[in-house]
């Protein structure tokens, strides 16, 4: 019971580490890295949910796609394609968000000369 849930638990631990970095660190770059770790952990968890024991990738070979019988045996041994398709979307969106956060951090560093959140908050203008 515990062993079958162990990969989920480790993915959750990774997510908690990311959340800790986002909340507790005061360097903006560190916070961005925390968001990236959080992103990885959530993608990993969704992928783990779709795995089947001994499953193959959801790509049929031409021989398997030839008839409906071989296709049915393929479908009975394939991992879940839906989480994979949605995680593929999420990975690329993660890159876009990271680029946006990094450009904001660059501008903040240009204006205040520091990545420290607490000092940026104290400064005016």
């Amino acid at each position, binding site marked *: 019971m515990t062993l079958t849930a162990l990969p989920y638990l480790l993915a959750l631990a990774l997510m908690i580490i990311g959340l800790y970095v986002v909340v507790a*660190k005061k360097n903006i770059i560190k916070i961005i890295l*925390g968001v990236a770790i959080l992103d990885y952990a959530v993608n990993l968890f969704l992928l783990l949910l779709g*795995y089947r024991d001994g499953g193959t990738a959801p790509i049929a070979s031409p021989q398997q*796609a030839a008839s409906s019988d071989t296709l049915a045996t393929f479908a009975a041994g394939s991992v879940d394609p839906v989480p994979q398709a949605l995680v593929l979307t999420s990975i690329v969106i993660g890159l876009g968000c990271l680029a946006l956060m990094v450009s904001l951090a660059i501008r903040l560093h240009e204006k205040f000369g520091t990545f420290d959140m607490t000092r940026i908050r104290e400064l005016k203008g």
Partner: protein
Amino acid sequence: MGMVMLLLLALLAFMIIGSLIAAESEDLLSAVVCVGAVGSGLAIIDLLLGAPDLAITQVVVEVLCVAILIRVVLTRRDETHETHKDTFAIATVLLVLGVLLVLGGWAMTTLHPFGQPLLASDAPGVAAQYLAGGVAEVGAVNYVMSVLLDYRAYDTLGEATVIFVSVIGSYAILRRTGRSHRAARSQEGES
């Protein structure tokens, strides 16, 4: 316990150790490199769990992420990256995260066990239909792509919109001179 499970646990441990080092490292550059290692571990896990499309995307995205972050960190040295000094606040954060870990862990044990997805259960949901009719309906043998580009094409359109907006946003934030500045300068040049 199968080979896949052992490798998966080893890679997950690698990812957790890497992210802990990234969290506590004094040097920003080594933290960035550690996050790169975590992402590469995720790409290998993708391969292990039968998701080659995801592995390819993850590697490309990882290289871009690390390149962007190293570009930022290398030219801008900054000495302040320790945790907040307030021990009470940190203790509260750790307590809340610990409670989250316990409750989340309890929730994870109530999920269907690892290796037996919803797809293999009595109520297989939409994925079984995609797997059964994908080749006949879409004509693509790669089911991930048939979900991405046909069954869930509107999601992909939304994704493209999000990426477009983030690129426009980054450009707007990073451009050297704003539109109003440029207009003012051209007026000065004329007068």
